[in-house]
C-alpha cells in the first residue's frame, strides 16, 4: 500500500526515533491498541481461523476434524457454486466495463465546461447514498413484468415486447447489473472527474496546436495519463463486486431458481442455513482467493509505479 504520501516520510525521519524501551511513546502504543487488535485478531486471526476450519468437516459446530480438500472438491462440483462464480464473473466483467465506460464518459462530458454541472453531478451521484437493499427493491419494482417497464411498453402498443429479466434465468444477472450500475457508476464518475481535473490544461492547448481531434485526444493522450485513476477505480469496483450480497438478496433472493446466486450468498446460506460450516468456510476462503488474485496485480502495479518515480 503506497499510501505513504508527502509529509509522512518527513515525520518518520524527524520524530520517530528508534524505540529503545517499550515505554517509549507509550501513549501512542496504547492508542494503537484497537487498531492492532483489529488488524491481528480480526483481519488475520479470523481469516486464518476460517481457512484452517475450511479443511475440516465441521457441521453445525466448528471442530478440528480434518478432511483435507474434501470441502473444496464438493464446492467445485456443486452446481450452485459454479453458477454463483459464473454470475460473479459475468456481473463483474460487465460491471467493470460499463462502470469504467459510463463513469469516464459522464466525467468527460461534465468536464466540457457545461452549464448545470453541479446539478448533473448531483443527479448521477445520489444513488450512491442509497443502500443496496433500497436499490434492489426499487429495481425489483421497475422490472416487475406486470406493472413495470414491460407493461408500459406493451401499453404503448408493442404487444409482444418482453423484458422480464427478474423472471428469466438467462438474463436475470443483467437485471441485477442494471441496478448495480445505477447505484455505483456515480462514484466512479466522481473519481474520474477528479482525475480529469488533475490534468494540465496545457495538454489541451498542445493537442489543439497539433490538430488532434477531441475524441482522439481523450483516447490517445488523456486516458494513458490517467492510468493511476483507472487503477484505483478498477480496484474499487473489483473489491466491491466480490462482496455483492444485499443487492441480490433484496432484488431476487437468488432466483429464479438458482440463476442469480452469488458466492457471498452461498457462504451465508451454507454457514447458517444448511448448518455446514466446513463448506461455508471453504467457499469464503475461495472468495478471499479471488480478492487476492485481483489485488496482486494492483500491488505489483503500485510497487512498479513507485520505482519509476
Amino acid at each position, binding site marked *: 500500500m503506497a499510501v505513504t504520501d508527502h509529509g509522512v516520510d518527513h515525520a518518520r525521519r524527524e520524530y520517530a526515533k528508534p524505540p529503545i524501551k517499550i515505554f517509549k511513546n507509550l501513549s501512542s502504543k496504547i492508542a494503537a491498541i484497537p487498531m492492532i487488535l483489529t488488524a491481528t485478531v480480526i483481519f488475520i486471526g479470523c481469516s486464518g481461523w476460517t481457512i484452517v476450519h475450511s479443511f475440516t468437516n465441521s457441521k453445525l459446530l466448528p471442530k478440528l476434524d480434518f478432511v483435507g480438500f474434501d470441502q473444496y472438491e464438493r464446492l467445485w462440483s456443486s452446481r450452485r457454486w459454479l453458477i454463483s462464480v459464473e454470475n460473479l464473473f459475468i456481473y463483474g466483467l460487465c460491471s467493470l466495463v460499463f462502470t469504467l465506460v459510463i463513469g469516464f464518459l459522464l466525467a468527460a462530458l461534465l468536464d466540457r465546461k457545461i452549464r448545470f454541472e453541479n446539478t448533473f453531478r448531483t443527479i448521477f451521484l445520489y444513488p450512491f447514498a442509497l443502500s443496496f437493499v433500497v436499490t434492489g427493491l426499487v429495481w425489483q419494482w421497475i422490472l416487475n413484468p406486470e406493472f413495470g417497464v414491460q407493461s408500459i411498453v406493451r401499453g404503448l402498443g408493442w404487444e409482444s415486447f418482453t423484458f422480464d429479466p427478474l423472471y428469466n434465468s438467462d438474463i436475470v444477472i443483467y437485471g441485477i447489473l442494471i441496478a448495480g450500475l445505477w447505484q455505483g457508476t456515480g462514484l466512479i464518475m466522481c473519481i474520474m472527474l477528479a482525475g480529469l481535473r488533475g490534468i494540465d490544461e496545457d495538454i489541451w492547448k498542445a493537442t489543439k496546436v497539433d490538430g488532434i481531434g477531441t475524441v482522439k485526444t481523450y483516447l490517445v493522450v488523456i486516458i494513458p495519463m490517467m492510468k493511476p485513476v483507472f487503477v484505483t477505480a478498477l480496484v474499487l469496483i473489483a473489491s466491491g463486486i466480490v462482496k455483492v450480497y444485499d443487492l441480490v438478496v433484496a432484488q431476487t433472493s437468488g432466483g429464479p431458481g438458482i440463476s442469480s446466486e452469488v458466492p457471498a450468498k452461498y457462504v451465508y446460506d451454507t454457514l447458517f442455513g444448511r*448448518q455446514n460450516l466446513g463448506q461455508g468456510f471453504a467457499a469464503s476462503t475461495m472468495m478471499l482467493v479471488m480478492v487476492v488474485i485481483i489485488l496482486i496485480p494492483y500491488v505489483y502495479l503500485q510497487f512498479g509505479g513507485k520505482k519509476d518515480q
Partner: protein
Amino acid sequence: MKLTKALLSATALCAAATTAHAVDLEVTHWWTSGGEAAAVTQFAKAFNEKTEHNWVDGAIAGGGSTARPIMVSRILGGDPMGATQFNHGRQAQELVEAGLMLDLTDVAEAEGWKDVVHPSSLLDACTLDGRIYCAPVNIHSWQWLWLSNSAFADIGVDVPANWDEYVAAMPALDAAGIVPLAMGGQAWQSSGAFGVLAIAIAGQDAWKAVNIAKDADVAGGEAYAKVFDAAAAAREYSKKTNVQDWNQATAMVIEGKAGGQIMGDWAQGEFAVAEKVAGTDYTCLPGLGVNAVIDTAGDAFYFPKQDDPEVEAAQKELAALMLSKEVQVEFNLRKGSLPVRGDVDLAAANDCMKKGLAILESGNIMPSGDMALSPDTSGQIEDLMTEFWSSDMSAADAQAEYAGIIADAD
C-alpha cells in the same frame, strides 16, 4: 377489580415461594402470512392470558430458510431466545446434541404427552437418547393439491379428481390464459412439490428407499425417472406463475388465475382468510388424488437453554400450554394443520381438514423429508429442484444430479 387482582397476586406470592416473576419470553418463528399470523396469535394470546408471562413475538419473514440461520446463529452465539420454531427432525439435531436445548422430559411426563400425541412418531422426532427436547405443535403434510373450482368452470371442465385428470386439463387452462400450475419461486416450494410427485408417482416404498435408506440406485432408477418426467411436463405449465412467495401462488388459485397448486396443508389458512369454502370454491386432493397418504411433517418448538430458573419455568409453561387441548384446536384451525393430539374435538374443521384427519386415523402416514434428510442434503436438493423448475434442465440431467446428492447424503 384492581383490589381483587392485587389480592390474588399477593396470595399467589405467599402460596408458592417458587412462583416465577413475569418473564418476557421471546419466541421466534417464520409464520408471517395472513393465516399463519392468525394462528400464532392464538399461542401469544393463550400465553399472555393464562400465565403471567409475556409473549414477545420474534417473527422472521422470508420462510424457514431465511429464518433458521438467524435462529441458529443466535443460539450458537450465546443469545438464545425463549423458544423457537423448527421443523422437528434433523434441523435442530446438532443443537440438541450440543446440549443447547432445554430438556422437556418432565413436562412431557407431567402432561402425558406419550399418551396423547398421535402419531407417536412426532414425539420420536423430538427425542434423543430417551429425552424429549421439543414440543410438536401441529402436523403438516405436503401431500396436497389445491384446485380452483372457478378456473375449471371457466374452461368448462369438471374439477379433476386426480393428478392425471389435472394434467389432461392443463392445455385447456393454458389456452384460456389461466396458469395451469402455480409454482412460487422459492426453492423449498419446488423441492416440496417434487417430493409430493415422488410419493404419488413412484410410490411410498421407492420414496422411503431414497430418503431414508439413501439408496442412490433407486434415486437414479426407473420409478424416479417417471417422477422427473412428470415434473418436467408440469414445469412447462407453471412457467407463467411469476410470483415468489407460496401464498402469492395460493392467491392465484384463490382468485382463479391459476388452475391449481401443489402445496402443503398450510395453504388452507390462506383459503380461510379469503373466506373460501372447501368443496365449492376450491378442491383439495390429498396425495394428488392418487395415493391418499399424508406425511407427518410439522412444526415444533424448541426451548434453548438459559441459565435462569425463572425463564426455564416460563419455557416449560409455554411448552405445556402449546399442547393443551384448547390451544391445539384454536391454533390448528387457523393454521390449517392437524392437531398433534388424537383426543381433541375438531368439529369446526372444514372438509379438507376432515379428509386429513380421516387419513391420519386410518394410519396411512409416513415420515417427512425433514425428519429423514439433514439440512445440508435438503439444501442441496432444494438448489437442484429450484433450478430444475425454473430452467430447461432435462429430466435425465436432473435425475443424475439427484442420484449424486442421495449417494453423498449423510
